[in-house]
């Protein structure tokens, strides 16, 4: 097996989105957005002469789980924020609440959109998206009561405008507690690798690419920590193990989106509403997903059997993109710099 862990870790260093570096700007934007929201709502309700609904906010998504990656060429940075209104779902309609948020923020940047699961605030430069803040809108009467997520937008069919059961805290705890200490670091690395693989190998628009939470949960389900015989983490093996598990978990299932059955990978949320996170992918997209996983699996298998790290990393680069480092050809002569007499603790 080629000694390629070093290059996986270098790759990770390149793609990792650090919570306190690159994200500082996002954090700042998040804080501005929540302040704007608070001020905007206050004004809206004062104008209507009604009492302003209270809310709290929390981080969610890869920012919260610390599994964020640098966007590849195709994408932009994002940060997911949960906005939780303290109100009764029976007295307020989900789209109406999302409209409050939209109204409060719509003049904040050039582009604010209400999407099915959230409200998105885009930050642009020369009409190009730099980053965006996704606001998922929840309601909860009071703490310790269930959370509900506002789905739908104006124009959606009535059955899609609903308060859906949700448990953002439960999900956060599940992911954060799944592994501990150094195993957790490998878990995060593996999630980042597979997310970058997804970014490189799938179109960024539409439903073709498997969503991040799906890949994160897959790593929670099957990402058994892998170490080599020296006790050192072996990310290639861990990623291979995850890929193989995902492939073998494809089974013949019914797709509501396609109204027909096909070979699909189902990954259910471990909390309410316990639904399949990949349910919006079509059967055709699932087929592509599996094909690409098979190619990834073969590449990982091949990489681990190749002697020279240069050749192994060249193969991996095809699947993980240009950020994957490729060392120069190993040459025996390279050792001339290392000492020829070394200490040894062995005795008999």
């Amino acid at each position, binding site marked *: *097996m080629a000694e390629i862990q070093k290059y996986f870790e270098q790759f990770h260093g390149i793609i990792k989105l650090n919570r306190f570096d690159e994200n500082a700007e996002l954090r700042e934007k998040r804080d501005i957005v929540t302040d704007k929201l608070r001020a905007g709502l206050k004004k809206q309700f004062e104008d209507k002469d009604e009492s302003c609904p209270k809310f709290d906010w929390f981080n969610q998504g890869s920012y919260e789980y610390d599994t964020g990656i640098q966007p590849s060429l195709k994408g932009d940075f994002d940060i997911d924020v949960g906005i939780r209104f303290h109100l009764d779902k029976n007295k307020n309609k989900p789209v109406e609440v999302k409209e409050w948020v939209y109204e409060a923020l719509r003049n904040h940047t050039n582009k604010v959109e209400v999407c099915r699961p959230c409200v998105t605030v885009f930050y642009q430069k020369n009409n190009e998206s730099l980053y965006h803040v996704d606001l998922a809108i929840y309601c909860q009467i009071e703490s310790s009561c269930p959370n509900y997520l506002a789905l739908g937008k104006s124009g959606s069919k009535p059955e899609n405008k609903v308060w859906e059961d949700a448990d953002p805290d439960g999900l956060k705890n599940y992911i954060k507690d799944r592994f501990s200490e150094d195993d957790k670091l490998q878990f995060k690395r593996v999630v980042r690798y597979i997310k970058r693989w997804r970014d490189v190998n799938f179109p960024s628009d539409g439903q073709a690419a498997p969503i991040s939470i799906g890949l994160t949960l897959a790593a929670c389900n099957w990402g058994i920590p892998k170490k080599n015989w020296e006790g050192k983490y072996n990310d290639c093996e861990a990623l291979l193990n995850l890929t193989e598990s995902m492939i073998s978990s494809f089974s013949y299932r019914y797709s509501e989106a396609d109204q027909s059955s096909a070979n699909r990978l189902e990954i259910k949320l471990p909390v309410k509403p316990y639904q399949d996170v990949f349910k919006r992918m079509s059967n055709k997209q699932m087929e592509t997903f599996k094909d690409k996983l098979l190619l990834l699996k073969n590449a990982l298998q091949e990489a681990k059997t190749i002697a020279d790290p240069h050749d192994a990393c060249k193969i991996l680069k095809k699947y993980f993109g240009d950020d994957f480092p490729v060392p120069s050809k190993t040459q025996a002569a390279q050792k001339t710099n290392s000492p020829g007499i070394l200490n040894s603790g062995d*005795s008999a």
Partner: protein
Amino acid sequence: MLSPELIDTTHDKIANVIHAKSGIRGHVTIAGLHGNISIYLPTDFPASKPVVCLDKYDSFGFVPHVDMKGEVCFCHSDNILLDRYNPEGIVQSALTMAMQTIEKGIKGENTDDFLKEFDHYWISQNHIRRAISLIDINSHPRNIYYQEDNGLLYVSDSNVAVNKAIKPKPLLSGLYLPLNDSFTVSPPRFNTSWEASYLKTLYNSLNHNKQKKLRKYLSEKAGKESLLVFSFSRPSEGKGSLGIYYKNTPVVKDTIPSCYTPVSLEREDPQHLLARGGGHKSLQGKKVALIGCGAVGGHIAFELLRCGIHQLLLVDHDKLCCENRYRHVCGHASDDYKVDVIKREIAAKYKISEKIIVEKARVQDALKKKPEIITNNDLIIVAIGDPTTSLWLNEKVFNERKKWPPVLYTWLDPLSIGGHALLTNNKGSKGCFECLFYRGTDEAPYNRASFVMPNQNFTKSLAGCASMFIPYSSMDALRTAEMASRLAIDTLLGKEHHSPLLSWKGDSTEIRDNGFLLSSRYNLSQDALFDSRYEYRFEHCRICSK
């Protein structure tokens, strides 16, 4: 028990012998036979079991498990727990068990037990002689040898003096005859010898060939002294043996002369003693070369020996010095070569020194001089703790791997942090000592099996360069030797089919307290270390993957 009465322990013979503090005697009926039975309570009762006795050993007929003075052996003290809070229960159980034992004897249900206890009856004969036996109790009739010293006989398969200390005494020939397995030998009753009629039966049970050998031997020895050793089968207990000695062998026809002196054989043959120590008979023909006879190697030599490997080549150029005293299995008495000291100790303790070869040389020189004395073994164990020489040897082995037997490397980590054993060249499997050091990276080589981070200096010096050493204790060496020896045995018995790397890990306090760093391998659990024992193999190793 009917008509029980207290025993007057001050005037009772048995009570005095066993120091009984009290006892009770009564009448019992067992399987229709009537007799008295006595139960004595020893002074430390209930910490010791009661003694149950019959008036005479044959009060209920000649039955097994009753000794000459009538004591019934109803259970073995090693295998029981006495409930000291229930002394009445102990007495009741003792009586019940003793009566059951006698009942089985009366009904003939435990006749085989006579054979288990044959020696017990045999030694009760008058004028019994003692002998130390080194002969292999097997199924081959053959001539054997014996020597006498101070009334004690030494019996051996070898015509080399059995006990070198008694050279002046002549070495005489005896005859070993295994009785047929189908023949059940009956022990003589206490204090009596076999009668002529029984000896005739014994003779008749022998097949024609054995009878012929016996006749020939006895006629050769007519008028002179002679020794016959018979072996017999014991159900589930292996073979038993007995000796018959004639001071003046009489001339008789078609029987075994009855004027014999019984000989009790104390078996000291390795087959018998090894079986008692859990050794393997099949290892006796195996040959092992042990390169490095220091703290680890020294222990390995003795462990292999105790497992039944009696053909050893010991290679070491070092002498024992006083600094070895508390680390070496032999301690230190004089500044002799380690190999000589080990050989001497083997000779003194195990009486098998003739197959121990020593080579006072470095392995490099020994190999140059006579490579075949090293390669011509079933296993080579390298316990030199020197990675440079071990890597050199490893390359040599894999250059001509078919010529070499499996090679097992074993070494210690410093400061009680662990020990390792790596088997290589076993049954064509890959994985070698080089795989631990060179893995196709641009890193400087280091032993990746180690539990400490590379390139730390652990050597200590008590008095300058000449006395540099790496700190570890004798117990670390022993633990490593034990692990390596088990792997060696598994290899020789064909139980290990691949080339594992085995490691034990110890407490890390000393390492940490001294500011040294542990390797990531140390953090693997003992189970994970074992589960990954074959994974160290480097597929592109330039030595074993050529």
